C-alpha cells in the first residue's frame, strides 16, 4: 500500500490544500512518507495535535527529525545544521529550559503592555508616511514589515539601520527553494553580525534585552548569538506575515473588515481568529518520538517523525464549528497558531500587542482601504516556510 506524501499546493490562497483537509474524514492521525523516504505521521486533528505538542516523549531536535519537504536545507539540517549554540527552539529539556527561563521574564503580558504606547507611535508613523506618499503602495513594505521589525530591533537593541542584510538573510532561511550552501552563508552572516553586536554590548551595555543578557552573565557570546538569532528572525517573520496576510483576508472578506474597523470590542478576539484562520506556520511543527507513544489509537514508534498540520488542525470542526470561515466574532481562543507545549511561542504576547494595535490603526485611519490589484494577482508565499503575501498592493 502506498502512503501519502505532503501536499503543499493550495487551491484557494486562504485555505489549506484540499488534499490535506480531506484527510480529516479518515481520522486525526495519518501515515505519511517524508522526503527522505521515512514513514512517519501527519496529524490533522486538533486534539491529537495538542497531545503531540504537549507530550514529553516528543523531541524537537533537528538531528532526529526527518525532512518534511525535499529541500536541501531541511535535508542538511538532519546532518547537524550549524546554528550557534543558544538557538534554543530546536532543543529539548533541560537545555531548552535553561535558555527559555532566562527570557520569559522579558516577554510577560505585563512587560508587553508597557510597549504598547511605543508600538502605537510606530504604527502611526508608518500611516503618516503612507498618507504622505499616497496609494497605491505595497502594504508589506510600508506597514506590515516595518512595525514588527522596528519593535523587535528596539527591544533587542539591534540597530534598525542594519536591517537590510538580516532581513534579506532571514528571507533566504525561510525560502523553501534555498540551497544548503546559500542557507549556510545566510546563517554565517547573521551569526557574524550578531556576534559583533554582542561584543560591542559587552563593552558598552545599553538599556536593551541583549545588553541585559550580556550583563546577566549566564551565557557566553556564542550562546548569546544563538539567542539573538532566534529572537531577531522570529520577531520579524511572524507578525509581519500576519499583518500582511491578515489585511488581505480582511480586504477579501469586506463584512469582516467592517467588523474589525467599526467595533473596538471585536479586535482582541478578531486577532485570535485571524491567527487561527490563517495559521501562517503552515508546514509543521515537526516532532520525533523518543519512545513509543500512543496518540488517539495510533502507535507512534520511537524514532518516527510526526508533522502537525496547523492550518487543518485549527479548522477541526469538532473544536471550531464552521472553522473554514473567517468570523472575527467567533470564540477563537485555544487555536494552535503559536504552538502548544513547552515550545509555545515565547513572543506571542508581543505579537498580540502588535496586532491588536496595528490592525485597528490601519483600518480606522484608512477606512476605504482596498486592493490595488485583483485578489488573484497578489503573490502568495507558497514558497516560504512561513505563509503570507510577498507584496500587498493597496490604495484607499
Amino acid at each position: 500500500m502506498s502512503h501519502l506524501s505532503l501536499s503543499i499546493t493550495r487551491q484557494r490562497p486562504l485555505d489549506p490544500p484540499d488534499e490535506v483537509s480531506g484527510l480529516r474524514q479518515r481520522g486525526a492521525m495519518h501515515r505519511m512518507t517524508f522526503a527522505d523516504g521515512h514513514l512517519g505521521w501527519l496529524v490533522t486533528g486538533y486534539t491529537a495535535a495538542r497531545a503531540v505538542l504537549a507530550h514529553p516523549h516528543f523531541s524537537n531536535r533537528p538531528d532526529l527529525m526527518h525532512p518534511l519537504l525535499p529541500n536541501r536545507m531541511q535535508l542538511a539540517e538532519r546532518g547537524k545544521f550549524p546554528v550557534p549554540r543558544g538557538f534554543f527552539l530546536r532543543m529539548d529539556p533541560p537545555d531548552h529550559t535553561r535558555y527559555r527561563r532566562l527570557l520569559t521574564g522579558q516577554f510577560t503580558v505585563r512587560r508587553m503592555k508597557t510597549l504598547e504606547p511605543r508600538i502605537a507611535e510606530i504604527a502611526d508613523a508608518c500611516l503618516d508616511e503612507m498618507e504622505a506618499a499616497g496609494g497605491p503602495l505595497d502594504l508589506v513594505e510600508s506597514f506590515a514589515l516595518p512595525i514588527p521589525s522596528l519593535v523587535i530591533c528596539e527591544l533587542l537593541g539591534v540597530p534598525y539601520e542594519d536591517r537590510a542584510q538580516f532581513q534579506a538573510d532571514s528571507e533566504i532561511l525561510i525560502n523553501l527553494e534555498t540551497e544548503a550552501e546559500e542557507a549556510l552563508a545566510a546563517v554565517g552572516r547573521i551569526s557574524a553580525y550578531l556576534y559583533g553586536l554582542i561584543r560591542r554590548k559587552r563593552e558598552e551595555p545599553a538599556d536593551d534585552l541583549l545588553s541585559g543578557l550580556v550583563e546577566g552573565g549566564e551565557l557566553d557570546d556564542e550562546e548569546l548569538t544563538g539567542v539573538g538569532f532566534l529572537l531577531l528572525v522570529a520577531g520579524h517573520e511572524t507578525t509581519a506575515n500576519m499583518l500582511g496576510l491578515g489585511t488581505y483576508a480582511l480586504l477579501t472578506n469586506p463584512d469582516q473588515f467592517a467588523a474589525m474597523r467599526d467595533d473596538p470590542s471585536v479586535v482582541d478576539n478578531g486577532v485570535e481568529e485571524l491567527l487561527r484562520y490563517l495559521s501562517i506556520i503552515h508546514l509543521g511543527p515537526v516532532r520525533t518520538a523518543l519512545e513509543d507513544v500512543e496518540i488517539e489509537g495510533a502507535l507512534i514508534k520511537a524514532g518516527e517523525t510526526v508533522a502537525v498540520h496547523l492550518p487543518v488542525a485549527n479548522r477541526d470542526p469538532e473544536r471550531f464549528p464552521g472553522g473554514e470561515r473567517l468570523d472575527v466574532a467567533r470564540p477563537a481562543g485555544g487555536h494552535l497558531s503559536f504552538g502548544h507545549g513547552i515550545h509555545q511561542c515565547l513572543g506571542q504576547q508581543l505579537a498580540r500587542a502588535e496586532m491588536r494595535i496595528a490592525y485597528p490603526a490601519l483600518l480606522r485611519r484608512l477606512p476605504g482601504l482596498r486592493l490595488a490589484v485583483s485578489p488573484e494577482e497578489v503573490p502568495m508565499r507558497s514558497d516560504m516556510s512561513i505563509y503570507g503575501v510577498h507584496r500587498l498592493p493597496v490604495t484607499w
Partner: protein
Amino acid sequence: MKIKADTSVCIGAGMCALTAPEVFDQSEEDGTVVLLQESPPETLEDASRRAVTLCPSGALSLE
C-alpha cells in the same frame, strides 16, 4: 474551585495572565506563573477554567 500552579514546569507563555488577570500574574524575574488567588470567586471561575485549559505546559490544574 481550587487552582494549583506548578512553577517548575511553567514556561511563562502568559496565557493565564492574559485570560484571567485577576487570578494569575507572571513573575517579573522569570515570567513563571504567580497565583493571585487560589480559590477564585464564582464570577472568575469560567475565566480561570479557560486559563487552565489554555496553559501550554500543563503547569495549571484544578482540584
